[in-house]
């Protein structure tokens, strides 16, 4: 045996296996997609509706992913109930993300009120920092390393956008370009992961009878 058996690693592997099918990558991509498409819709629909339109889009995307997970993913990976340590970790993560979102919401109000006095770069930097922290925490608590990369990608998107806007005059603060690129990376990564998942985990046959087991 060349590898040490680590219970912690086994638990992590078991946890990661249940949701690393690439579908969440695709779902998360709707976040930068909103920032990429929203500004393009704004002249037609107005600021409010160009953002609000994404609420039902998010809902439909979630429903689609839920259905694919139920009918395509779960029959391939089976079912597992996590241990108490993992459940505690997830509960902590939920609480921290809730508090973090409240803090971002409060900061968003401060930025909105002082919008005219703050520079675009400063707003972009604050947004980027919060996304980086949020995604890094999610990556840590969910054992989902790709989220570190996505966090980094999203955190630089507004800054690069601002730079494109000030240097080359790219429309809408460069958001359609930078966030579109981030969304594209996430969608591509998610699709590749999903296709690999389907290839590596074909539908299993019906359970065989268990030898020596009781039929209770």
């Amino acid at each position, binding site marked *: 045996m060349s590898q040490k*058996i680590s*219970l912690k690693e*086994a*638990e992590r*592997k*078991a946890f990661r*296996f249940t949701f690393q099918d690439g579908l969440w990558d695709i779902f998360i991509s709707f976040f930068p997609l909103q920032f990429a498409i929203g500004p393009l819709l704004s002249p037609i629909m107005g600021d409010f509706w160009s953002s609000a339109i994404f609420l039902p889009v998010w809902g439909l995307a979630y429903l689609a992913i839920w259905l694919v997970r139920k009918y395509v993913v779960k*029959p*391939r*990976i*089976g*079912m*597992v*109930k*996590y*241990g*108490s340590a*993992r459940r505690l970790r997830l509960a902590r993560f939920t609480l921290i993300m809730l508090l973090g979102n409240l803090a971002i919401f409060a900061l968003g109000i401060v930025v909105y009120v002082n919008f005219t006095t703050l520079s675009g770069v400063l707003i972009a930097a604050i947004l980027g920092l919060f996304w980086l922290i949020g995604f890094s925490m999610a990556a840590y608590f969910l054992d989902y390393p790709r989220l570190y990369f996505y966090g980094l990608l999203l955190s630089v998107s507004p800054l690069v956008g601002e730079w494109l806007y000030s240097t080359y005059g790219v429309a809408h603060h460069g958001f359609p370009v930078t966030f579109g690129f981030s969304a594209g990376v996430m969608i591509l990564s998610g699709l590749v992961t999903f296709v690999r998942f389907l290839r590596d*985990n074909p539908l*299993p*046959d*019906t*359970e*065989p*009878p*268990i*030898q*020596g*087991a*009781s*039929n*209770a």
Partner: protein
Amino acid sequence: MPDEQSQPDLRPLADIDQVIHAPARLMVLTYLYVVESADYVFLMRMTGLTWGNLATHLGKLEEAGYIEMEKAFKDKKPHTTIHLTKQGRRAFREYKKSMQQVLDDLPD
């Protein structure tokens, strides 16, 4: 004549739980130890065992009283949920402890 003092005492090896000691069963128990319960498909994916192999090993673990299996039907198909019993959890802990002890005591 070899010095008895310098020879490692290998007798504890004979006390190693043979039900757990088989690699396939050890894999199954390791995963069941770190989760609350899992079904057949999940264990097959995690361990890489075939249906038949997994069924055989689960049968032996159930006979030893280390796991419990709840059988049900889901979408008209048989669905088995497996979890460690208290006895199985204790046996796994003891196995881990004794293996660590035996291997630590062996000279390099």
